[in-house]
C-alpha cells in the first residue's frame, strides 16, 4: 500500500542481483575459511591436505567452473543441466574424503559447502520443473529421491551414526546382496504365495458380490453400510484369530487379506457400476440390449477407473495384511517373520534389507496396476491430461 505512490519502474535491489546465487557464493566463501574435516585428530583445510592426498581443491574448481558455465549457457535449461553436474561433483567430495579416511564430523567447511550445493540443486530443480513432460514428471522427482539417498549416505557416514540406529543405504544394498537367498525365500512365501492368493480371492469375491448386489438392491443396501463400517475399523486385528483358525501357513495370511480386501473392492465396484449416465443407459435400452449386454458393453468399461482404484488400494492392504499376520506366527520363513525375529536379535541390516524388498514390492505392485490402468483406461479424462 505504501508503494502505491512510488515509481513502479524503479529498479529495486530485488531485481538487480540474483540473490539465490549470491547466497550460494557467500556460503561457499565462508566454507573456504573452515576445515573440511580431521585426519588423525588434526583439522584438514581445503588446501592443506594436498600432499596428504585429498583432492578437495579440484572438486571446488570443478563446481565453480560448472556454475560459471551454467550461468553463461545460451538457454537456462542447458545451463541447469551443466549446474547439475556441479551439484553432483559437490556431493561426490564427501564420499571422496570418506574414502581418504577423513573424519567429517567436525568439517563445518564441508557441511556449509554442501548446504550451498543443496541450494544450487534446488534452483536446478526449479528450472527443470518448468520443463513440461518427461523432465518434469520423471527427472525432477528422480533427482529429489537421489538427493535424499546421497544425503542420507553422507550424513550417516559423516557423523558416524551407529548402524543400529540407521545404516547408510550402501550398507543396506550390500545386505540385500549378501542375504539374497534368504530374502528370496521370504519374498516367495509372503508375496508369491500368501499375498497373490489372498488378493485374487478377496478382490474376486468383492467383485462378484458387487455384481450380485447390483442386481439385488436389497443386498446392496444391507452391505454398503457394513462396508463403510469395515473401512472404519481396524480389520488387521483379526490376524491373530485367523492364525488360530487356519494355522501358520499361507492360508491364515490369505484369509486376513481376503477379509481386508473384500469390502474396498465391493464398494468400488458398486460405485463404478452406478457411474453410467442416464443417457447412455437409455441408448442401450433403445437398442433393445438386455442386462448382460448393458453390463459388458457399457457399465463394466465405465466402471474400470473405479475397479482399478479398488485394486490399487488393495495391493497395499494385501501386503500389509500378510506381513502383520506373519507377526502372529508363520513357518520360519516370510517377510513379517524375518522382520520380527531379526529385530529382536538386533540384526538390523537384514531387517532394513527386508523393508527395502517390501517397499519395492509395494511400489512395484502399485506401479504395475497403474500401468495396466493407463493401458486400459487411456480414454478416461483423468488419464488424458497430456
Amino acid at each position, binding site marked *: 500500500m505504501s508503494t502505491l505512490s512510488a515509481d513502479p519502474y524503479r529498479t529495486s535491489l530485488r531485481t538487480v542481483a540474483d540473490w539465490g546465487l549470491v547466497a550460494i557464493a557467500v556460503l561457499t566463501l565462508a566454507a573456504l575459511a573452515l576445515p573440511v574435516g580431521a585426519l588423525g585428530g588434526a583439522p584438514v583445510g581445503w588446501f592443506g591436505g594436498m600432499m596428504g592426498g585429498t583432492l578437495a581443491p579440484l572438486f571446488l574448481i570443478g563446481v565453480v567452473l560448472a556454475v560459471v558455465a551454467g550461468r553463461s549457457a545460451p538457454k537456462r535449461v542447458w545451463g541447469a543441466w551443466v549446474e547439475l553436474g556441479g551439484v553432483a561433483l559437490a556431493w561426490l567430495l564427501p564420499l571422496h574424503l570418506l574414502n581418504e579416511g577423513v573424519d567429517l564430523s567436525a568439517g563445518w567447511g564441508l557441511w556449509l559447502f554442501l548446504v550451498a550445493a543443496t541450494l544450487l540443486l534446488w534452483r536446478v530443480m526449479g528450472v527443470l520443473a518448468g520443463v513440461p513432460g518427461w523432465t518434469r514428471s520423471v527427472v525432477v522427482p528422480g533427482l529429489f529421491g537421489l538427493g535424499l539417498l546421497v544425503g542420507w549416505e553422507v550424513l550417516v557416514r559423516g557423523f558416524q551414526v551407529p548402524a543400529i540406529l540407521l545404516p547408510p543405504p550402501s550398507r543396506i544394498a550390500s545386505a540385500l546382496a549378501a542375504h539374497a537367498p534368504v530374502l528370496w525365500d521370504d519374498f516367495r512365501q509372503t508375496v508369491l504365495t500368501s499375498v497373490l492368493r489372498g488378493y485374487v480371492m478377496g478382490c474376486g469375491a468383492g467383485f462378484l458380490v458387487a455384481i450380485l448386489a447390483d442386481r439385488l438392491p436389497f443386498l446392496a443396501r444391507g452391505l454398503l453400510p457394513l462396508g463403510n463400517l469395515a473401512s472404519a475399523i481396524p480389520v488387521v486385528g483379526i490376524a491373530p484369530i485367523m492364525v488360530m483358525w487356519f494355522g501358520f501357513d499361507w492360508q491364515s495370511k490369505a484369509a486376513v487379506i481376503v477379509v481386508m480386501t473384500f469390502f474396498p473392492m465391493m464398494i468400488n465396484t458398486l460405485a463404478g457400476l452406478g457411474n453410467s449416465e442416464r443417457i447412455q443407459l437409455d441408448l442401450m435400452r433403445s437398442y433393445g440390449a438386455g442386462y448382460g449386454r448393458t453390463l459388458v458393453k457399457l457399465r463394466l468399461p465405465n466402471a474400470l477407473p473405479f475397479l482399478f482404484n479398488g485394486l490399487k488400494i488393495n495391493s497395499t492392504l494385501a501386503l500389509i495384511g500378510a506381513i502383520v499376520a506373519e507377526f502372529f506366527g508363520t513357518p520360519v520363513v516370510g517377510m513379517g517373520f524375518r*522382520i520380527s525375529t531379526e529385530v529382536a536379535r538386533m540384526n538390523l541390516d537384514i531387517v532394513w534389507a527386508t523393508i527395502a524388498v*517390501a517397499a519395492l514390492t509395494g511400489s512395484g505392485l502399485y506401479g504395475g496396476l497403474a500401468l495396466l490402468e493407463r493401458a486400459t483406461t487411456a480414454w478416461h479424462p483423468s488419464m488424458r491430461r497430456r
Partner: protein
Amino acid sequence: MIKRALPVTVMTLLLLAAWYVGAAWLNWPQAAETLTRAGKPAEFADVLAQAYAMKRPILPTPDQVVAELWNSLTGYAPTSPRNLLFHTWVTAEAALTGLAMGLALGILLAAGIVYTRTLEASLLPWVIASQTIPILAIAPMIVVILGNIGLTGLLPKAVICMYLCFFPITVGMVKGLRSADPLWLDLMRTYSASGMRAFWSLRLPASMPFLFASLKVSVAISVVGAIVGELPTGGQAGLGARLLSGSYYGQTVQIWAALIMASLLSVALIAVVRGLELVLLGRAGVR
C-alpha cells in the same frame, strides 16, 4: 428411513446367525471331546450347550464377547490394567498424538506443494509412492530404533501413526487448497490482496471440506497404526498388546473383546470428527 434400516437390520441379523452357526461348527469337535472325556453322553443339545460355553473356544459367541466386555468395563477401576478402557485410552492417546503430528506435517507439506512448483514436481510423487510401501511392516523397526535412542512408550507409536496419516491429509489438502474457484482468486487479485491474505481468507476455508474428508480416513488408519505399533513392545498396555497376549495364551474371548473395543474406538473417533465438521462447516455456511 425404514427402507434403509430394514436391509441393514436383516444383514446384521444374518451375520449374527452365521456367527452362532459358525461358533457351533468350529467348537463342535472340541466340545464333544470335552464331554466324552468327562464321561458324559454326547447328545446334540449337550454338545451345543458345551460349544457355546467353552472357556477357550475357537470362535466365541457374541454373548460371550459382550459378557467379557461388560465384566472388564464394570468390574475394575478404569485405571486398572484389567479394565479394557485403560488399554483403549493408551491406544487412543497414541493414535491422537500421531494424528495431530500427521495433521501438522500434512498441512505444511500441502501448503508447500501448492505454493512452490519445485516441491510439487519433486516431492508429490514421493508422497504418493511412500504410501505404496507397507509401512506397518516397519512398525517394529521404528519402535526398536526409537527405543535405542531412549524414546519409548507413546512416541514411537505416534510416529508410526503420523506416517500413516499424513498422506491422506497431504493429498486431500493439496486438492482442497487448489479447490478455490479461480474466479475468487481473481477477485482477490483485484483487491490486490497479498498471498498470505488469499491463503487465510480464501484457500484455507475452501479446503475445509477436503480436510475433514481426509481426517475421517486418517483417524481410522491412525488407530490401526497405534494397534500394530503396540505389537512389538511385548504386550504391556494397549489394545494391540491385548491382541498379542490373547493370541499367546489362546484367550480368544479376550482377542474378540479387544477387537470390538478397537472398532468402537475407531467409530467413536470418526463420529467426533464428523461432529466437529458439522459444527465448524455448518457455521461457516458450507453444506
